């Protein structure tokens, strides 16, 4: 009986340890929601809007995690590809749903190219993929700026002066996407008790989830899981590790490009030089808040994460303003929490890795001892 209790205690402890971050967030939200004084329908509306806006982007992170490449900070590359496509499509004046679909199609070659470059570089930096993908996002951002700020309009033809800087080349700081704003969200949208539900967007996200589940079962998906578990074993089993890793990054980048286009059609304008800069950080933070870790993430984590993270994001400034009388405190608080969550998750992952290593060592020693006793 006592053994059972002990066991239950141990399970509870492991549960707590594995879910520290989501539980912490539930607590923060539980405290902040009443203080902020937002009405439930407002909150629900905001959360569903943000779910539609962000879920697809976050889904793009799942596949590299499966392939053991950690959190893909290089998803920013996909976001940039999506933005490039949107700039072209708005220059061609193709609006509404055709515009969104065309942008997605145009983004694919950019995403594939960038993803391939990123995957190649990450293969040269095995063991430190995350910091490398993080620096890649900065590096490609420089190249993106070079293209958009200097080459567009001077080398790459841009016809409409409305999106060009007054000097004749380079793209303006904001490109209006007013003519495709929420075109996907509004089609088939349903209003229930004042809460707008963007059914089509949610359907697209659901379809993506199904695709990911299906993908995991394919040969390629299985290969990726094998590579994620142990590169050496996978290689011995005849899997082309390098190629598999590159493909996983390419898929992630393409999905991030689609996600960014969905995100921007909801927002309705494109901040040419800054829209992508924070996207990686927020998506990764949201995924981790949902209980994912560096080596394991599920679709459930994505949705729990979006809901918890964005609830915090909505209520924190208001709650901070009520508590301290200064609205900036809440703004800084949510930024701090986003970074703090990522830091915590990274630390827990590295410590878990060390613990497992130590465990394996102990087990080996134990097995050796037993063997000696048998002799």
């Amino acid at each position, binding site marked *: 009986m006592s053994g059972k209790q002990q066991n239950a205690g141990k399970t509870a402890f492991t549960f707590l340890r594995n879910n520290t971050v989501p539980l912490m967030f539930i607590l923060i939200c539980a405290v902040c929601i009443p203080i902020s004084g937002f009405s439930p329908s407002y909150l629900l509306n905001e959360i569903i809007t943000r779910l539609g806006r962000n879920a697809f982007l976050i889904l793009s992170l799942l596949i590299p995690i499966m392939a053991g490449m950690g959190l893909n900070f290089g998803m920013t590359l996909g976001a940039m590809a999506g933005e490039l496509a949107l700039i072209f499509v708005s220059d061609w004046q193709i609006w509404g749903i055709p515009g969104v679909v065309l942008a997605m199609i145009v983004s694919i070659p950019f995403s594939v190219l960038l993803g391939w470059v990123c995957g190649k*570089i990450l293969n*040269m*930096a*095995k*063991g*430190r993929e*995350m*910091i*490398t993908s*993080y*620096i*890649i996002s*900065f*590096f490609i*951002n*420089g*190249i993106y*700026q*070079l293209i958009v*700020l*200097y080459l567009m309009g001077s080398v790459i033809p841009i016809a409409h002066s409305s999106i060009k800087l007054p000097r004749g080349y380079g793209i303006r700081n904001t490109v209006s996407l007013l003519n495709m704003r929420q075109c996907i969200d509004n089609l088939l949208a349903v209003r229930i008790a004042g809460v707008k539900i963007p059914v089509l967007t949610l359907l697209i996200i659901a379809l993506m989830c199904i695709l990911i589940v299906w993908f995991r079962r394919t040969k390629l998906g299985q290969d990726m899981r094998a590579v994620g578990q142990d590169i050496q074993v996978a290689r011995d089993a005849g899997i082309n590790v390098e190629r598999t890793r590159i493909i996983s990054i390419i898929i992630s980048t393409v999905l991030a490009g689609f996600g960014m286009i969905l995100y921007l059609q909801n927002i309705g304008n494109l901040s040419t030089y800054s829209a992508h800069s924070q996207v990686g950080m927020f998506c990764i933070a949201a995924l981790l808040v949902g209980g994912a870790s560096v080596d394991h993430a599920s679709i459930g984590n994505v949705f729990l994460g979006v809901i918890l993270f964005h609830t915090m994001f909505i209520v924190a400034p208001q709650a901070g303003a009520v508590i*301290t009388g*200064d609205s*900036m*405190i809440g703004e*800084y*608080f949510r*930024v*701090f929490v*986003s*970074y*703090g969550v*990522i*830091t915590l998750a*990274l*630390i827990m*992952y*590295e*410590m878990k*890795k*060390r613990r497992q290593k130590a465990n394996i060592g102990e087990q080996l020693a134990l097995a050796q001892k037993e063997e000696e006793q048998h002799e």
Partner: protein
Amino acid sequence: MKAKLASFVASFGLPRLIITGFLLALFILAPIVGVDLPMQITNVINRFSWNAILVLAMVPMVHSGCGLNFGLPLGIISGLLGATLSLEFGFTGPMSFVMAVVISTPFALVLGMGYGALLNRIKGGEMMIATYVGFSSVSFMCMMWLLLPYHKADMVWGLAGKGLRTTISLEGYYDKVLSNFLQINIGKISIPTGALLLFALLAVAMWAFLHTKTGTAMTAVGSNPTFAKAAGIKVDKIRMLSVVMSTWLAAIGILVYEQGFGFIQLYMAPFYMALPAVSAILIGGASVNKATIVNVILGTLLFQGIVTMTPTVMNSVIHTDMSEVIRVIASNGMILYALTRRSEVSR
């Protein structure tokens, strides 16, 4: 001849060669397009004197195998605490600089020890976690700058009477105290002797330290931790020492930067300060697990040279300022290059 050239390129590194060549081209172009060269040289030397100590802060952690210190903002925050407290306590003139150094030291030691203890528990994942430790601490301090009870009239927001401003002028405090100390003027070129002397002092101290018993142990830990452990070196302790040193140097580094720049920058300003320092030392020839004082000096000169020269020269040549983009591509490209060297994968 060709083989010799190839081996030179391989050892020096192609990106480094491109960056050096680019800077040389800028210097050659400068007089042709009518840029005031002595003025530019003064600028480069000045910016070197502001930034060199921040770059020097990279050295100890690279030596002990903790990798590039992307967590530099943590040390910078200690420096900022020292600077603001020194002003708050009413120190002025050169004394305010001395007190800023004195006050920031305990902060740097405590934060550095905590940071070191953390890095000891996550060996192998240092660089990524360091980056995020830096980010979290900067965003945490953003709240603190607003909440801490500072009252000095020229530091806080005028209307509210509380909460520090985003930039605080150092006029009347330690603005240029080091730069003006023993300043030498040759023609149009002026040399900030004091700041250079302080850097020289710290650099020599670092060089000497690396040749002491503890310093050699630090290098041993970095190059082969298992061997070092077998030789009876307390690996964790040495790593901790290197992190504390790096954090303290970052604190001093930001104070020297401020005295040259003339302002204290708070809130999000320290956020990306690690990246220029990291890429500077890499441009100077360092790698993820090898760095010398020469790398620091060369790297800071090259990096700051590009930062100062590109805007003016580019502007005169093509009448647009592409310097920001070039800086982003060059510095991050350099970091990428260093991270992907296969021979240096430490795990």
